[in-house]
């Protein structure tokens, strides 16, 4: 079955520290992968997307993600976290087997930032 997995439910990092949020997908062909961020009481905002080509993609707010086919991963990174990055982050995949062309969302990772 197709799925998008975010192994970490909650992560806490210190302001200024680096960040990596994990995302794994399972399916058969080349997926289309997205990272969204959700601030409290808000909708989801697209951070970045991967369709094909360069496996390192740059997004907004200083985020980047790397697609690794061999590891079925699309991890989100930021070199230096700011307090305003505290939010919930969702990985989503499209083009997954059995998805009928719709996006499959992970269950999210909540990021807390310590001063």
């Amino acid at each position, binding site marked *: 079955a197709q799925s998008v997995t975010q192994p970490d439910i909650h992560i806490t990092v210190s302001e200024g520290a680096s960040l990596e949020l994990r995302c794994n997908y399972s399916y058969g062909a080349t997926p289309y992968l997205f990272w969204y961020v959700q601030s409290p*009481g808000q909708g*989801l905002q*697209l951070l970045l997307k991967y369709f094909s080509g360069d496996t390192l993609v740059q997004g907004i707010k200083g985020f980047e993600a790397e697609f690794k086919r061999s590891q079925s991963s699309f991890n989100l990174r930021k070199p230096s976290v700011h307090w305003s990055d505290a939010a919930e982050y*969702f990985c989503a995949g499209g*083009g997954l087997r059995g*998805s009928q*062309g*719709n*996006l499959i*969302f992970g269950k999210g990772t909540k990021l807390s930032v310590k001063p």
Partner: protein
Amino acid sequence: NAGVTQTPKFRVLKTGQSMTLLCAQDMNHEYMYWYRQDPGMGLRLIHYSVGEGTTAKGEVPDGYNVSRLKKQNFLLGLESAAPSQTSVYFCASSYPRVNSNQPQHFGDGTRLSIL
């Protein structure tokens, strides 16, 4: 730029009551979606529409109906609300997807409580 607008933002219903959630987008998107978000569950697709006059079931369609009479609007109906339908509902829209490669744009959500 309004983007995707959802009304109402909050609502409390009694079990058995009916209501309609409205989603409007001004980006001329062909595709529209309704999701529900529950703690620890990520986003689950309820119904979606690939064009005016067409709708399809998503992952969790039971207890909901939808209509897409106009391209810019997508309505989600609860005919007889149940406590299990207490959730945050998100509407999204996108351009036509080719293998799911179009990002979705989200509204700010409707918080619905069923007593």
